[in-house]
């Protein structure tokens, strides 16, 4: 039967080529949409490694360029914040705190391996604020400040990229006066948004300049308390300014940057695919109405309604298969050439979902006209001109 269908399709290759081309383009569009969606879903479903609920990002402008003054001011702030029972924990941090629009990154190398890592400078109380859990080692403490070699925490991704399967703890990176030693490893740390893949990140003890901080407050803390604390901080120094943002709002903003374009892409693609479906539907209706005599003959010589139905669905499925094979040739290049540095598995899932979607779409479009064809009365079909 397949050979029979193939012969019919081959004879009408010119008209079928257009349909095949339409399926090929649809396949590539769906492949892109599914790959992107799956990639983001997969990242989204992984834990963020931090608890952003009831955490404020406090941005303080000390109105000075002096690092020594900033150190004094920071202590002032620390002392003040300790007086509030609503505050559970707080930590100063470089401005590239989670869900902020700042970034500080660099290439880090170790014995020929290089990774591009985000570098954060934070207080030792940072994990208490974000409720971060280490999978290996320990967090750095105030006592580590006296060491010549800076203790650092790395993400699992950074560990794998720099040290492979080796134990990262105790490993020293950097040269001469700028050495850092890994003291802890954190499995998950999504600091950009919920759709961020596992990334390289290095967390080190606070340097001289940061004046931003993260504050964990007790659940149920009111806006009045927020205003009270903000006011109290402003009054600590001359011409200071304080801005408090909620980390969950910051996260929502960063997430929006990712999912809104995906949603727009999804809507545009849905519209395109809907048009393709309408086109297919029309073409199939026209094809079937042109082939009514053939349907009559087939019915006369022994085809059941089911045979007719599956004949037309089958023909469409064969054309679809050719369109998909053509599309596969291009789609498969993505994992083979490691385009966009995504895991091959993500592309494979994208391909599989695109194939399923195309078949569902095409068969859904073919089913109704084919059903109509199968219902044509043989005596009537044979007399169609």
């Amino acid at each position, binding site marked *: 039967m397949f050979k*029979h269908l193939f012969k*019919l399709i081959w004879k*009408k290759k010119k008209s079928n080529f257009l349909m095949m081309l339409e399926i090929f383009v649809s396949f590539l569009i769906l492949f892109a949409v599914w790959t992107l969606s799956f990639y983001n879903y997969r990242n989204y479903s992984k834990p963020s490694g931090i608890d952003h609920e009831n955490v404020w990002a406090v941005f303080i402008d000390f109105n000075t360029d002096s690092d020594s003054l900033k150190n004094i001011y920071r202590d002032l702030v620390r002392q003040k914040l300790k007086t509030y029972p609503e505050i559970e924990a707080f930590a100063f941090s470089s401005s590239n705190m989670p869900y902020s629009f700042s970034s500080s990154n660099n290439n880090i190398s170790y014995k020929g391996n290089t990774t591009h890592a985000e570098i954060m400078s934070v207080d030792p109380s940072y994990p208490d604020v974000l409720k971060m859990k280490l999978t290996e080692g320990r967090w750095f403490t105030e006592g580590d400040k006296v060491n010549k070699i800076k203790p650092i925490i790395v993400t699992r991704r950074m560990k794998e990229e720099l040290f492979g399967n080796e134990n990262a703890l105790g490993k020293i990176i950097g040269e001469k006066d700028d050495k850092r030693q890994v003291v802890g490893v954190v499995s998950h740390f999504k600091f950009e948004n919920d759709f961020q893949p596992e990334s390289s990140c290095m967390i080190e003890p606070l340097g001289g300049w940061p004046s931003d901080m993260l504050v964990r407050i007790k659940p149920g803390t009111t806006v009045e308390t927020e205003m009270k604390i903000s006011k109290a901080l402003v009054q600590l120094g001359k011409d200071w300014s304080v801005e408090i943002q909620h980390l969950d709002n910051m996260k929502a903003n960063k997430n929006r940057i990712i999912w809104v374009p995906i949603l727009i892409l999804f809507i545009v693609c849905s519209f395109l695919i809907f048009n393709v479906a309408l086109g297919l539907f029309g073409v199939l209706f026209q094809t079937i109405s042109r082939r009514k*005599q*053939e349907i*009559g003959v087939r019915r006369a*010589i*022994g085809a059941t309604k089911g045979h007719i139905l599956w004949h037309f669905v089958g023909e469409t499925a064969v054309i679809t298969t050719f369109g998909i094979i053509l599309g596969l040739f291009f789609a498969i290049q993505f994992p083979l050439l490691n385009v966009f540095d995504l895991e091959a598995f993500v592309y494979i899932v994208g391909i599989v979902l695109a194939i399923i979607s195309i078949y569902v779409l095409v068969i859904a479009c073919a089913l109704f006209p084919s059903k109509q064809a199968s219902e044509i009365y043989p*005596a009537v079909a*044979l007399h169609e001109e």
Partner: protein
Amino acid sequence: MIKLKNIEKVYRTSTIETLALNEINLEVGKGEFLSIMGPSGCGKSTLLNIMGLLDEPSKGEITVDNETISGFSDKKLAHFRNQKLGFIFQSYHLINDLPVLDNVELPLLYRSSSASERTQLATEALQKVGLSNRMKHYPTQLSGGQKQRVAIARAIVGRPEIILADEPTGNLDSAMGNEIMDILINLNKNDGTTIVMVTHDENMAKKTNRLVRLFDGTQVM
């Protein structure tokens, strides 16, 4: 072989009712070559369609091979047509996108026969109608007479007991028509195939065993 009892066919629209066949009682014996004649629109093709189980009568009973065809499912009707009946049409009704051999193989496609068996039977059928040298041609590359011979090959490939031919010589000149008629006579005489043929041509009808005439849906002879 085929027995029609009180067959009536009425075509109904919302405003009009047309009686296409009225009280047709006809019996076609095994190995008989019967022709049906009558003016255009008298119901010849309707009668043939009903005999070929392509259409249902509004009233009456059809018996084929002592089996009463009523309440048959679509599947059973299709199986019955595939096994017992062969059709030849005035305008051949070949599938232009398939080569001759594939056109002839078509009825076997709806049976559980292997590809090699199909090819063998189709080749034999084409040999029988003298077209074994045109197997790979497409219908559009053939003359009218050749097309009708392909249609005959398609009708006989499944070795049916009954062939129903709707004006098989209607689109052909007399020489071609005679050639086709000779093939049908041979099938009837040599293979014992029962043939029911609708025709307008008195000369062709004379070559058959029996003639039935219809007028305004009624059997007059």
